[in-house]
């Protein structure tokens, strides 16, 4: 029976080795990835105050990359599609952050007052508009287009990234007939279901990042 104990010890050593290997494997990435915690960020709002993603802990958060002069953004605002979604989701307790990553001098870069006037004119209802002139937030999320949409669940996990809907056109009339991915992701996740379409190719104008 002492023979047996040698194998036992060897087994302990083997398990020990395998667990050490497993421990060495754990890595954490710091870029937005669907299914992983959404990267933290801080940016200034319309009043010049610093706002962080952490301020909205425990709530669903929708991120909308925004550029009011982009034809694709106009499509969704001039058709009223974006406002409808904003009202609907914020009404269900979600936080809506419109993020402007246009650099100074580039299309879509606006002052807080210009943006306020735009929101009033369009009757837009984001929870906050955040300014990201350095493009830090945009790059952390890999935002490519305006609009580029993200949904973060109440546990801070990114559950959707991509296009606003399934019709990548710049025509306002298409917004009404398209399947809206953001609404679908929010509805499924808040009903405790897995998100069917969690990642799509965004469409729109390029984000006008700083050179």
């Amino acid at each position, binding site marked *: *029976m*002492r*023979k*047996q*104990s*040698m*194998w*036992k*010890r*060897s*087994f302990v*050593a*083997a398990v*020990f*080795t*395998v667990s*050490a*290997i*497993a*421990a*060495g*494997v*754990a*890595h954490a*990435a710091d870029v937005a*990835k*669907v299914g992983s915690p959404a990267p933290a960020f801080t940016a200034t709002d319309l009043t010049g105050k610093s706002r962080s993603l952490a301020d909205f802990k425990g709530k669903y958060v929708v991120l909308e990359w925004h550029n009011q*002069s*982009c*034809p*694709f953004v106009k499509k969704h605002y001039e058709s009223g599609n974006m406002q409808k979604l904003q009202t609907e989701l914020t009404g269900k307790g979600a936080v809506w952050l419109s993020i402007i990553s246009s650099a100074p001098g*580039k*299309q879509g870069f606006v002052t807080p007052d210009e943006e306020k006037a735009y929101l009033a004119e369009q009757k837009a209802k984001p929870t906050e508009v955040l300014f990201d002139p350095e493009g830090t937030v945009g*790059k952390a999320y890999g935002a*490519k*287009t305006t609009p580029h949409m993200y949904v973060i669940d109440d546990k801070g996990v990114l559950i959707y990234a991509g296009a606003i809907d399934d019709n*990548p*056109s*710049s*025509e*306002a*009339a298409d917004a009404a007939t398209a399947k809206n991915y953001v609404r679908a992701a929010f509805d499924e996740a808040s009903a405790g279901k897995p998100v069917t379409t*969690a*990642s*799509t*190719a965004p*469409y*729109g*104008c*390029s*984000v*006008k*990042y700083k*050179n």
Partner: protein
Amino acid sequence: MVAMRGAGSGGRETRDRFRRACGRLGLATVLLSTTALPARAVMVAAKHVDVELVADVAAAPPGGAFRLGVRFVPEKDWHVYWRNPGDSGEAPRIDWTLPPGLTAGALEWPAPERIPAGPLVNFGYAGEMLLAAPVTVAADVATGAPLDLKAQAKWLVCNEDECIPGGATLALKLPIGTGDPAAPATARLFGATRERLPIALPAGWRVTARPDGGRVALVVDGTPPPADGAAFFFAHDREALDPSAAQALSREANGFRLTLTPRSTVPPALAGVLEIGARAYTVETKVAASAAALPFVPIAFAFLGGMILNLMPCVFPVLALKALGLVGLGGEARRRVRRHGLVYAAGIVVSFWILAGILLAARAGGAELGWGFQLQSPAVIAVLAGLFFWMALVLLDVVTVGGSIMGVGQHLTTGDGDRAAFFTGVLATVVATPCTAPFMGTALGFALGQPAPIALAVFTSLGLGLAFPYVLFTYVPALARHLPRPGAWMETLKQLLAFPLLATVAWLVWVASFQGGPPAVAAILIGLVLIGFAAWVAGRFSGGGARVAATAAVAIAGLLALRITPLDAPPAPEVTAGATAFAWEPFSPARIAEARAAGKPVFVDFTAAWCVTCQVNKKVALETSEVEAKMRELGVVAIRADWTRPDEHITRALQEFGRDGVPLYVLYSGKQNDPPRILPQILTPAIVIGELEKLEPLELKASELTSDADAHRSTRSATRSAAHGGEIEWRST
């Protein structure tokens, strides 16, 4: 061509007013006067782009066909888009309105350009573009009046800063006639466009795609890589690939491959345009390892490799002991032994699955790992060193475990052997790990790049190969009969087998010294002393106290091992300060880019201390005076990418070459666009020098050439100078 300012051409306000008037998008409608000349259209000057409807015939042939297209001429720095616009933008759309008898086919998209916009990449056309479709004309088409052809075009035209949607209803009056060619300028446009249309793959070419980790390998068989290294795959589907991801080109046995990056998950199929140099080809392929492509060769090699592992210093002692246990067994015992052989094989295979599973899962989670990752952690190295040391002490009879080897066979027949056999398999796998990485890293790296089922098949085959010799012994008594009679020699052999294990321990400590520095070495050595103490206590005394003391000593050794942390900074790069004083530089993508930009050839040695093949190549080939002299002569920048410790930059660089392990030897010529050449895994000075001599003599200064009296070299330089004038053919080695 009559150019006319259309309604869409006014200032912004005019346009906005017009847009409101026309509803969405602002459709500029240009109506032609009915007195237009045959086949004449009017160019619409919209914002930042002129558009026009054109046909490749002066008159449409009844019963024949012609091409009808919309010509886009964007302003300088503006562009329109391909069918897949890339990261942003939108493809133009054309709706035809044709008279009865005319039918338009699908739009023919010329191969696009890649248009960068900051970090993004769009696919489109920065210059004149013709988007045409074939139109068939019925034989009985009404011939009374010219054909009234209309196209409603919508587009998005962008520069780097803004995008403007546009639209126009374009018209063309085309007489009916014999199908004479259009005016020369239009004919030239159609001709030039035809050159840019993707064509079918030439006979003998084959394009396949397979998943490669999280990426897709698009393999082009039957043609060498383009001389200028320029190849790109444009996917039709926006969702399929990340437009801004680089597509690394690497040479394959019978062609080359591009490594493509999906948007999110690997698509089930790829359709698109493969651009190679100036030509574009239509490609459509499933992304899967088809049944025919099941890699029997790697699976067979894995089996063979597994068998060879039995002879490695880490594994041989374990296996030899098991084989010795078979000596002199007969009848009943033999049946049980067979069963245990199979259970042992199961233990091995399951352990390999666990290792492969950990790695595949970690990579699916985005970790930058390759095979050999187990040996990049000094804690793992320390635990392995301790395990081997313990086993050596057992073999040397410092600890007595269950009497003599001769008893093993009998012991296995006594009922509780299944578990023991299984864990022997686990043990064999664990002790084999340090040997798989150095000797089989590349094969396993290949396996890990395959879809999970194939990867597991390769690992299974490896495990079966490792188990095979022992299982064979249990099944073929004739083989066992060839073993010598049992006797005292078995004790001697058993003790002798401790020394390969101790040699492995010495090697592991050396490896750990690179990863954790002197603190790691100290911790491992103290751990080994503790293990030695535990073995002595266990062997010398019996009873509870001894067991507690031995267990405590081993536990402390284990804690020491786990507390070893990798050094923050890598140790100073190994610089050989020999007579040649040739300097290897540490790996840096920026340094490689800089040297290549300066037109210098670059040699990269991907290596690791734990990679035995790498170490052998280094000593035998790379760090020889003749190779270093040749490198100095040619001004080669020598880079050493040391993967002894985890380094995600190096892992990524390896993946760009489709590798997941070391060694890898890459040689960039001084020319920017030459694809890098990959050297074989086993190097000799002649191989390296042969490859170096294929470099162009750009770095050779005239003075060097003339002052060198070596006739041989002058001749060779002349040959290379001659080659410089013409096409350089890259030969695979």
